[in-house]
């Protein structure tokens, strides 16, 4: 395995990037590993979550791990946050890293699909077949949500278009 080369500039930049994106607790981490001990993602086999992800960032290795899919295996269960003795809120770091990845479009196609669904209907998960199902259980075909509400969709679209997500050209 190649040695990690420590460069202060890279470390500073990595930490700042993650903190700016919401992983504000990262510098408090003492690498005790309690987060990873309870993380379902780590257990399932996504190595770069919680402690190891934080360690990589603290080593300045943002670019090196940009294609890493582990972060997208995070269940957002926040169990790490509950056990962290330093109030790092590791999940926020994972999500900050995701945002870093997303900003570079290092995302999967399924992720892209959800964004487009959200933009078009206001729902990340939607299928036409739902109409049948709803009818079957005695509900109106269209629920009283944004899916059948043009004004609501416009609002959601306005929010998304102006956001950094809009700038990525996902919609």
């Amino acid at each position, binding site marked *: 395995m190649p040695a990690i080369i420590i460069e202060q500039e890279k470390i500073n930049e990595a930490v700042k990037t993650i903190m700016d994106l919401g992983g504000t607790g990262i510098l408090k981490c*003492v*690498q*005790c*590993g*309690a*987060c*990873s*001990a*309870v*993380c379902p993602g*780590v*257990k399932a086999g996504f*190595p770069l979550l919680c*402690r*190891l992800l934080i360690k990589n960032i603290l080593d300045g290795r943002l670019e090196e791990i940009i294609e890493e899919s582990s972060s997208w295996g995070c269940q957002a269960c926040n*169990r790490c946050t*509950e*056990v962290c*003795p*330093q*109030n790092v809120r590791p999940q926020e770091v994972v999500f900050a890293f995701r945002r870093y990845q997303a900003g570079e479009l290092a995302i999967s196609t399924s992720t892209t699909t959800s964004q487009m669904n959200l933009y078009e209907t206001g729902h990340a998960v939607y299928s036409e077949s739902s109409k049948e199902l709803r009818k079957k259980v005695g509900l109106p075909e269209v629920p009283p949500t944004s899916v059948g509400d043009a004004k609501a969709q416009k609002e959601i679209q306005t929010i998304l278009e102006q956001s950094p997500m809009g700038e990525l050209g996902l919609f």
Partner: protein
Amino acid sequence: MAKVGVYVCHCGSNIAGVIDVEAVRAFAETLPGVAVARKDLFMCSDSGQEMIKQDIRDGLVDRVVVAACTPRTHEPIFRAALAAGGLNKYLFEMANIRDQDSWVHAHDPVGATEKAKKVVASAIGKASHLKPLEDKFVDVTDAALVVGGGVGGIFAALELANMGHKTYLVEREPSIGGVMAQLDKTFPTNDCSACILTPVMVDAGNHPNIELLTYSEVDDVEGYIGNFTVKVRQKQTYIDWKKCTGCGACAEKCPAKTPDAFNSGLSNRHAAYIHFPQAVPKKAVIDMGACINCAGRTIGSEPRISKKTGEPIYAPCEKACPAGAIDRSLALDPNGTIRELKVGSIVVATGFKVMEKENFKEFAPDCENVITALQLERLISATGPTGGKLLVPGTVNKPHTMTFVSCVGSRDERFHTHCSRVCCMYMIKQARLLKEKYPDLSINMHFMDVRAAGKGYDEYYTGARAMGINIFRGKVGGVEKLPGGALRVMAYDMEAGTPIEYETDLMILATAIEMADGAKELAQKMGLQFCGNNFYRELHPKLGPVETSVRGLYLAGCCQGPKDIPDTVSQAKGAAAAAAVPLSQGKVKIEPILSEVHPEKCSGCGICVPLCPYDAISLKPYADRPRAVIDMTQCKGCGVCTSACPSAAIVLHGYEEEQIYAQIAALTA
């Protein structure tokens, strides 16, 4: 007009590396009243001090300002220099341009220099208005009080007593001994804790200069160094200790039960009980909270008369006592009695407590097979509830696998940020003892990192590895309860970077050391202060580790911060030596930074009287009118009366109004 000498210190590069010392000196020279302004590499050095003395002897200066570090450490040094030069030592003022300037403003040298000028000007302003003051001396009561009868308190008391000072040792439990008495063995020597502690306890109990006041608590402390008046509440024992022989017959017959705190709640004791078998003094008490008043014998009631025999019916404890020490007919005061002690110095050694497992939700605190390390200590002790056999509480079986978890509540923002310092070592001790006794037992230890700084400690730790104890770096994140009482540990292997999951029979939590119950209340009674992590604050972390900000009050043991037995004993002996100083001198100096009433300005309104926290102020006739007067020996110079006096008749020497106005003027110039 005052002739102020200003001396600016470089403090090597500590100050000069940031602040333009010459600019500050030159600026000081321009200020009114300044006679000379000089600078030196180290003002506190002999040559620096000599510079001041020479200027005084030459008649150049009659007020001195040193711009250097903090007066909290260096004021006494320079005051001594003034005295040596022949000037009243209170004609001195310090400008703090290191701790509160160069060290914190290194990023802004220009701003730091400007600030230094202002701070120096402020000191000059104050110095110009300083007045000479004289130290005062009062006699000392040659007796000491030690609060807390754990190993620290015992040693502090023995040292003081051996130096020939009458010493009172106050302990709130019925026996001295503290937490050390609960321990099985001690690291890194594996000495039996009771074997080394018991003789010392007996020494303390028999020493002619020591008076044990067990089952007692400090109610109130008044006075000052050399002359404290302490009220000690001796709690009600409900057993006449003059008669009690400690035979334990009452406890044997008592039917009432309550969790035994000495066994960390792992077993029960009776309401009538002796604290533990090696107790000193070996006396029984009745815990009224647990007593069920057998035969309707509430305290102070007459016994019922048996219809059958016509004889009075006594409670079992009364009947059992061969010494006749229990008489429930007596209307004993549940509040006990108050003893007033006069002492010259006080050592506080109130110890600590460990956190209970209930605080730690991720470790299944409701599961019987999760216990604290102190509970394990009782579980493996020959005097413990199982006679020293390791049995899993929930199953009463010998465990196959056990797990130690470190840093439970320590180094954790949710609880305590401090390291409890002893957990790594006592867990290793426990693991080693168990591995020796049960070689087949699989022992897994989980540390954030192992802290084994101490003589022989690291060898003790590496030896544990060699014994086949599994040691993992990484914190345990949680535990799942399996049917049948076993536990599934969710841990992490920091080196491998992977989670660890396995089943265990017994889980030991090394819970944090925290301040003892009642420590806060005691602090308020004594004027002690706390550090950020709720231990008593010492005067200085390095130079005053046993002293406190209250003169005459000294600290020993874990009340000042977590420590092991050798460190506690060392500190106790140090505290005893410090506490003996005023007692040996016979007199103590009182600094004249005290408040004084100008009787001719006082209007006798009496606003100040209830204000004084030390009851130092009273109204006495002066030219036939009631006027306030302050008792110099009671006053501690807080100035709370000065700032409240509606007639501006009270002056706080050393902090007079015109001095402070001069500082304000300088800082806003």
